[in-house]
C-alpha cells in the first residue's frame, strides 16, 4: 500500500485508483481526490477503507454553451486547463482559488473562494449542476432546483456527500485576457482594514499580503493587491505568455523556512513594493497564482511539512478582533512567509460553505512541536469571536472546537445521512472532526 499526502505533508496509507473512468472507480471508494492541493487531511482516506478514487484523468469537456457560458466537464478537469483554453476565447472562471492546480470537483467540494469573494461569492454560486455518486451507490443529478438539499450539501461538503462526477459551471465573459491592477504598501493592520474596504468598493479582485513577523507599530504591515480584467483598449495585443516556472527539486532542511530567512523574505517583499499605487498591465497567471510559479514549493518546509491556519472572523467580532488575532500570531512566532488577509462577502448557500462576511486571515506555519498548541490557542480565540476555520486547509483543529464553530453541522449531517445511511463516504478529516466511525 502506498501513502497519499495532503499538500502540507500529512499522509495516510491509501490504495489509489487512477482511471479515466471516474464513474467506475468511485464504486466502493471511500473518497474521491483531485490534484491533492488541500493542505491537511481532507483528501486522505479512513484507515478501514483506504480506497481513494483519483479524478485527474477524468478531464473531458462534455459541453460548452457559447450563449450562457455554461461549461459541463468531468470532475477531474483542472483550472489550469480551463484558463488556458477559455481565456483566448474571451471566457474566464467566475471564481478561482490561489492555485490553478485544482480540479472542478475539488473546487466544488471546498466551495473555493478567490480575490473576488466580496463581489462574486464562492464557486458554489456559479455551479449550475452536479452529477454525484452518493453513498448508496446511486448516481444522482442535482442543482439548485433539482435535489437542492443534496446540491447545497455537496457545495462545500468536502466530498463527504458523494463522489462528484461531473460539474457544470457558468463561465464569465471577460473583455481581454489581461489583468490591470496595482499593489501598494500598507503600514499597519488598522490601515489594512480600511484600505481593503475601500479597494473592495472599486475593484473586483482584492487581497492583502501581511508581514506577520513584524511587531509593534508595524504589526500587520503588508501589501495591498487589487485588479480587474483589462478592457480591450487597455490590453496589449496578443495573449500573455506563460511565466517562467521554477521548481523545488527536493525536500529542504527545515531551517530554510525558519524565522531568520522568513524575516529577510518578508522585508524584501515589503520593500520591493511601491508606497503609492501605480496601475500596470499584468499576466493573469502571476496575478491569480503567484505561488504556482514554483513547483513543489511545499518541499521548502522540510520533512515535517507545514500547515495553513485560515480562519474568518465575522464583522460582528469588530476590528479589534482582527488586531488581537494578529497580536497572538506575531507573539507566537510560529508564522512564516505567507500570510494573507481578505475581506469576505456574504455567506454562500452551501451548508458548510466556509467564507462569511468578515475578514479572513490565512497563514502558513511550519510544523513544529508546538503546532497543536498554537492551533488550539488560535481556535479558542476564533470560537470566542464567532469565527470558523477553513476545512480545506485544516489538519489540527480539535472536534470540540469545530463543533463550537459550526452550528450548521447538524443540518449538514442530516442530509449526508439521507444519501449515505451506512456512512460509506468518509475521510481522515471527517473522522477527526465530524465524529465519523474510524
Amino acid at each position, binding site marked *: 500500500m*502506498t501513502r497519499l499526502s495532503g499538500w502540507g505533508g500529512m499522509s495516510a496509507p491509501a490504495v489509489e*485508483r487512477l482511471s479515466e473512468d471516474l464513474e467506475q472507480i468511485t464504486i466502493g471508494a471511500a473518497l474521491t481526490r483531485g490534484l491533492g492541493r488541500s493542505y491537511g487531511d481532507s483528501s486522505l482516506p479512513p484507515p478501514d477503507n483506504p480506497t481513494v478514487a483519483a479524478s485527474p484523468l477524468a478531464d473531458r*469537456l462534455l459541453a460548452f454553451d457559447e450563449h450562457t457560458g455554461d461549461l459541463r466537464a468531468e470532475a477531474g478537469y483542472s483550472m489550469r486547463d480551463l484558463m488556458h483554453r477559455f481565456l483566448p476565447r474571451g471566457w474566464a472562471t467566475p471564481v478561482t482559488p490561489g492555485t490553478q492546480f485544482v480540479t472542478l470537483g475539488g473546487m466544488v467540494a471546498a466551495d473555493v473562494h478567490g480575490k473576488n469573494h466580496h463581489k462574486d461569492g464562492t464557486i458554489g454560486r456559479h455551479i449550475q449542476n452536479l452529477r454525484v455518486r452518493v453513498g448508496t451507490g446511486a448516481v444522482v443529478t442535482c442543482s439548485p432546483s433539482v435535489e437542492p438539499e443534496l446540491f447545497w450539501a455537496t457545495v462545500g461538503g468536502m466530498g463527504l456527500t458523494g463522489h462528484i462526477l461531473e460539474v457544470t459551471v457558468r463561465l464569465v465573459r471577460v473583455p481581454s485576457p489581461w489583468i490591470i491592477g496595482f499593489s501598494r504598501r500598507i503600514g499597519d493592520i488598522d490601515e489594512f482594514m480600511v484600505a481593503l474596504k475601500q479597494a473592495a468598493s472599486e475593484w473586483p479582485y482584492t487581497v492583502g499580503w501581511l508581514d506577520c513577523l513584524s511587531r509593534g507599530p508595524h504589526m500587520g504591515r503588508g501589501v495591498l493587491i487589487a485588479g480587474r480584467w483589462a478592457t480591450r483598449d487597455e490590453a496589449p495585443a496578443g495573449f500573455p505568455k506563460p511565466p517562467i516556472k521554477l521548481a523545488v527539486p527536493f525536500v529542504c532542511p527545515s531551517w530554510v523556512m525558519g524565522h531568520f530567512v522568513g524575516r529577510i523574505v518578508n522585508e524584501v517583499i515589503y520593500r520591493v513594493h511601491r508606497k503609492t499605487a501605480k496601475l500596470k498591465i499584468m499576466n493573469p497567471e502571476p496575478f491569480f497564482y503567484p505561488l504556482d510559479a514554483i513547483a513543489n514549493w511545499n518541499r521548502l518546509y522540510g520533512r515535517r511539512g507545514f500547515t495553513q491556519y485560515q480562519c474568518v472572523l465575522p464583522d460582528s467580532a469588530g476590528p479589534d478582533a482582527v488586531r488581537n488575532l494578529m497580536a497572538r500570531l506575531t507573539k507566537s512566532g510560529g508564522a512564516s512567509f505567507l500570510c494573507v488577509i481578505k475581506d469576505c462577502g456574504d455567506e454562500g448557500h452551501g451548508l458548510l460553505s466556509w467564507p462569511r462576511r468578515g475578514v479572513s486571515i490565512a497563514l502558513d506555519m511550519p510544523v513544529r512541536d508546538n503546532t497543536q498548541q498554537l492551533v488550539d490557542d488560535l481556535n479558542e480565540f476564533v470560537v470566542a469571536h464567532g469565527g470558523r476555520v477553513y476545512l480545506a486547509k485544516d489538519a489540527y483543529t480539535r472536534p470540540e472546537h469545530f463543533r463550537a464553530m459550526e452550528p450548521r453541522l447538524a443540518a449538514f449531517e442530516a442530509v449526508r445521512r439521507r444519501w449515505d445511511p451506512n456512512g460509506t463516504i468518509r475521510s481522515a478529516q471527517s473522522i477527526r472532526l465530524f465524529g465519523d466511525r474510524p
Partner: protein
Amino acid sequence: MNAVVFGATKGIGRAVARELAERGDRLFLLGRHHDDLQRSATDLDVRCGRSAVAGSAACDLSDPATFAPALSAAKTALGEIDIIVVTAGEFGTQAALEADLPRAHALLAANFTNTVVFCEEARRYLLPRGGTLCVFSSVAGERGRKPVILYGAAKAGLTRYLEGLDHKFRSAGLKVVCVKPGFVKTSMTAGLKPPPFASTPEQVARIAVKAINRGTPVVYAPGIWRLVMLVIRLLPRGVMRKIVF
C-alpha cells in the same frame, strides 16, 4: 491533416488526439467502446471550439476482425488519411503475467501480433499517396529485463517490425515513426511506483507529434531515455543477471 488515432479515449492516445486537434487536424477516433468514443469526440470538439472529429468507430486490439471495417469507416469519413497513430496496447506487471498464462498470451497477441496486423492494414491506406504511421512501442523492448520480460518481448518484436517497415517503404512515401516512451503516469501504470524520468501523457504526446511532423523514425519520450537505454544495452549479461532493473 487528417489523422486516425487508435486508442484515442485514454492515456497517451487521448493526449495525442488533443495535441493533433489543437493544431487543426481533423480526426477519426478508434477505441473499444462506442459511448466512450462519443464522449472523447465531444471533448475534442468543445476544446477546440470547432468540429474537430469527423467520426469514430469501435476497434478492439484483441479482435483483428474489427480492424478493416474501422479503417474503412475512417477513410469514408475523412476522405483521405494522412496520419495513423496507434497507442492502443495492454500492460501487465511481470508478476501478474507469470501468474496468469492466458493473460500473458492475450497481452503478447495484442501488443505484437495484432498490432502488426493492424499496421499491415493501416499501411495500405497510407502508401498510395504517402503518409505517416506512428506506433507506440516502449523502452521496455530495448533489452531483456527482469521486471518486463513478457511485455518487453512483445515491444521488442514490434520495434523490429516498425524498423523493417521503415526500411522497406520510406522511399515509397510511408513514414514510420516508432515512439518509445519510458514510464508514463497513466491508468495503465496505476499503482506502480513512478521511477526517475517518469513523464505525463501530455509530455509524451508533444514529443510524438513533433516526431510525426519531422518523420523521425525512432523517438524516445522523454529524450533522456535514449541515453539511459544506451547504457542499459551496453551492460554485460553478468550485470543484467544481478540487477533488478
